[in-house]
């Protein structure tokens, strides 16, 4: 970036003449401001170092604020998505940890609406005082905005195996494209398209419109709107469709404004609840709604183990003025079934020591076969990252303004100040679906994404980036690794894996952890985790660029996908790498393949990449800009030990009507590769990657 461009842009940033004239007209209409007399002066404008002047109240009658028409009854308001936080699966974790309430940190007791009311009010006040500065947590993993759910990468199909690229075997993750091997389910706006996965005979069978019938939003007064389908999950003969409902923040309407009478008014919409719609798909040509189970907040993620579905949402109490001590629904999350809603029981709501604002993480378990909710737990404190093993669900929240005492207790390095903390909460998952808060702990730094946490043999391994200022006032970043016990106390650590590099990707595979960091080159660290108290770095391999995603490719092989880099530390293009990890003390790169495209969803979302070691195939969607348009391609590579990576096929896919590339998922079913997006489904035969069928998903 040259300095010149800022000046050029700054010059252009002016309102239209119309807007300026309108402003002058309003100033005129206001008249000359009364000259303040000595005794009644307007209080001195605070110097910028003090309290900010309060934002002006909406102007009185006569100049209503500009309105977005869609608010008034137009069908089409949709959420532009919350940051979708990728869920985490754990590695193999055979044993179950019993819930140990006594180890939960001070102040986590629940069971009392009074205490919850006070806590929410306090959190609202604190976050309001800090204002917008604490709005966006700096430590949130950068998965970018998620639209209508995410594509499901396909793994080699087996009878019950998920076709989504998941972190942990046996734990399915929700995604925008799903399949049970017979039928393809594709999220498309507010609909779900069902197609027969039949090779050359692939065709559309039916569509589910989530705004009809029992699935419809809870109120039709224009104040509740439904967003697009966020994600899908399949379990047996049930399709679970996740949608988020939005409710207008009525207090923002101001007094005396009735929707429909004023020409314009601005109103924010908040995610009020996320619903899991369960459909019976025994006959995919006629899906039937079984039940609608909702919980407050916007969807974070969902996981499936057997026929137990876990849904995690993030619920923010956005309107402190609406909080009433005698109405629990105004300050705790609510659960709904069909049209019936009730506030969560106080005994299921927990507080954490450091909450960053009035937001709850809500976790529920649903028995899909019985179409019933089993249990619910919510934690006032929120979380940005969710990780799951078959026994536990971990919530990780990044705390940016932690007091020094907490930093010390968490083991933050003494030579760096103002670092972030990651607060961890463990929720134990019982076989019958019961949930219980089991432990809490904190570690220094922030986690990258779900892969940075992993449970193995009753211990949690976490890779973090610790960033802050050192004594010389320089900005430093450090990569660290922590091993915690079932009580989430640190038992072993590598507090400084490498200095001045940030974590780019992590993969824990049993007793070994692989961590990729990046500054100019891409060291791939191999860490021995056999002794939880003594993690040891075994080797460090340096290559240019970095891998954003690591995947095990059979015995002694590790696949990496990420960005190509040069010796100056600049990144351009993408690349695939294969590493030889058979000798942990000397991990080496066997081969790499450069991919000359701008970007790929797979860099930030592991669902987008298809990795099938059994067939030697890797599939990844890539995009590039050509003038004003975005082009979308799906690349299929074959990896063989003798020949390395070979491009087997490059497939052109359609973009949407807006010229943007939709999310794509590749699924391997029988002898075909299905490339599915909300725009089209293309079917290719694996033998020669010839096109077997193309189905356009019409609007």
């Amino acid at each position: 970036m040259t300095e010149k461009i800022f000046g050029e842009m700054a010059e252009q940033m002016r309102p239209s003449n119309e807007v300026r004239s309108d402003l002058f007209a309003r100033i005129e209409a206001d008249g000359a401001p009364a000259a303040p007399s000595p005794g009644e002066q307007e209080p001195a404008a605070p110097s910028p170092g003090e309290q900010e002047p309060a934002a002006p109240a909406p102007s009185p009658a006569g100049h209503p604020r500009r309105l977005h028409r869609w608010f008034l009854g137009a069908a089409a308001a949709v959420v532009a998505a919350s940051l979708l936080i990728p869920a985490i699966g754990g590695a193999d974790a055979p044993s179950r940890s019993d819930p140990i309430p006594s180890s939960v940190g001070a102040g986590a007791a629940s069971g009392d609406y009074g205490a919850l009311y006070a806590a929410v009010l306090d959190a609202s006040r604190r976050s309001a005082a800090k204002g917008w500065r604490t709005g966006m947590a700096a430590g949130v993993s950068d998965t970018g905005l998620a639209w209508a759910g995410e594509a499901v990468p396909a793994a080699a199909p087996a009878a019950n195996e998920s076709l989504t690229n998941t972190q942990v075997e046996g734990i399915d993750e929700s995604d925008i494209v799903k399949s049970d091997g017979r039928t393809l389910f594709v999220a498309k706006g507010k609909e779900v398209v069902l197609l027969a996965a039949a090779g050359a005979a692939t065709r559309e069978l039916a569509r589910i419109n989530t705004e009809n019938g029992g699935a419809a939003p809870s109120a039709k007064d224009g104040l509740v709107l439904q967003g697009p389908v966020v994600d899908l999950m399949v379990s047996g003969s049930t399709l679970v469709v996740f949608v988020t409902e939005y409710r207008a923040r009525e207090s923002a309407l101001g007094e005396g404004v009735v929707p429909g009478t004023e020409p314009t008014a601005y109103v924010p919409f908040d995610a009020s609840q996320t619903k899991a719609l369960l459909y019976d798909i025994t006959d995919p040509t006629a899906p039937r709604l079984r039940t609608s189970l909702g919980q407050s907040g916007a969807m974070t993620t969902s996981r499936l183990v057997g026929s137990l579905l876990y849904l995690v949402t993030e619920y923010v109490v956005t309107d402190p003025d609406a909080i009433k001590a005698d109405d629990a629904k105004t300050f705790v999350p609510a659960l709904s079934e069909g049209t019936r809603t009730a506030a969560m029981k106080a005994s299921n709501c927990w507080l954490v020591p450091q909450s960053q604002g009035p937001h709850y993480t809500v976790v529920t378990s649903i028995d899909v076969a019985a179409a019933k909710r089993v249990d619910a737990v919510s934690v006032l404190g929120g979380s940005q990252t969710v990780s799951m093993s078959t026994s536990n669900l971990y919530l990780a929240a990044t705390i940016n303004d932690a007091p020094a005492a907490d930093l010390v207790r968490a083991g933050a390095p003494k030579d760096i100040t103002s670092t972030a903390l990651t607060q961890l909460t463990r929720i134990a998952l019982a076989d019958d679906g019961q949930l219980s808060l089991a432990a809490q702990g904190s570690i220094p730094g922030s986690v990258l994404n779900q892969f940075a946490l992993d449970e193995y043999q009753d211990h949690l391994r976490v890779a973090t980036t610790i960033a802050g200022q050192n004594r010389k006032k320089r900005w430093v970043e450090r990569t660290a690794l922590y091993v915690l016990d079932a009580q989430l106390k640190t038992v072993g650590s590598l507090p400084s894996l490498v200095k001045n590099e940030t974590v780019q990707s992590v993969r824990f595979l049993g007793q070994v952890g692989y961590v990729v960091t990046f500054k100019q080159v891409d060291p791939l660290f191999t860490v021995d985790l056999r002794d939880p108290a003594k993690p040891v770095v075994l080797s460090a391999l340096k290559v240019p660029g970095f891998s954003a995603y690591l995947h095990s490719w059979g015995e002694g092989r590790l696949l990496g996908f990420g960005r190509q880099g040069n010796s100056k530390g600049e990144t351009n293009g993408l690349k695939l790498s294969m590493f030889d990890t058979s000798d942990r003390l000397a991990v080496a790169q066997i081969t790499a393949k450069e991919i000359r495209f701008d970007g790929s969803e797979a860099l930030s979302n592991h669902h987008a990449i298809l990795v099938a070691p059994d067939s030697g195939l890797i599939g990844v969607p890539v995009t590039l800009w050509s003038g004003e348009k975005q082009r979308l391609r799906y690349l299929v590579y074959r990896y063989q030990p003798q020949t390395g990576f070979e491009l087997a096929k490059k497939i052109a896919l359609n973009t949407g009507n807006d010229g943007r590339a939709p999310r794509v998922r590749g699924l391997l079913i029988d002898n075909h590769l299905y490339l599915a997006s909300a725009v089209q489904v293309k079917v290719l035969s694996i033998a020669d990657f010839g096109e077997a069928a193309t189905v356009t998903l019409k609007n």
Partner: protein
Amino acid sequence: MDGGTQDARQVEQIPESCLEMLSTREVVERYERMVYAIALTHTRCRGDADDAYQETFLAYHRRQPELRSEEHRKAWLITTTLNCARQISGSSWRTRVVPLGEEGRQVAPEQFEFASIEQNALFGALKALPQAYRTVLVLFYFEDQTVAGIAGLLDVSISTVKMRLSRGRARMRELLTGGVFDD
């Protein structure tokens, strides 16, 4: 003036040369570009930016804040614009609602467009940043504020400003080399 070190309520006489008596209209003409730039980069669309711009100068006009210097006036306007933009964007955590177009893709309300593709790309990347980083980058690169000045305006420590600058820059680099156009 370094906002961070200025004492709150100094009552000394201020030489007139430090603060011109300007009519509101003249203030608008002098600071319109600055206010609009902050409004644009902190709201979702052009309409919202227009609102924030108007509300800021109206507030200035109605409140007639007591100012000690031109620097102080500038700082008051910057802080007020940020507040207006925040309020207008709604403080719903991480969620926004936009009109739905065909096939479920969002159709953005009218966006501000720059002259060149490069400038639009930069703007897009800037808007994609988390707000904490974005504010610091905008004040630093577009408004030529010093790190100390920004710390004073936002009431944070200098180290926090530096941290956000460096992280913001790194994130911008990431976005501009490919991330922002993914999906």
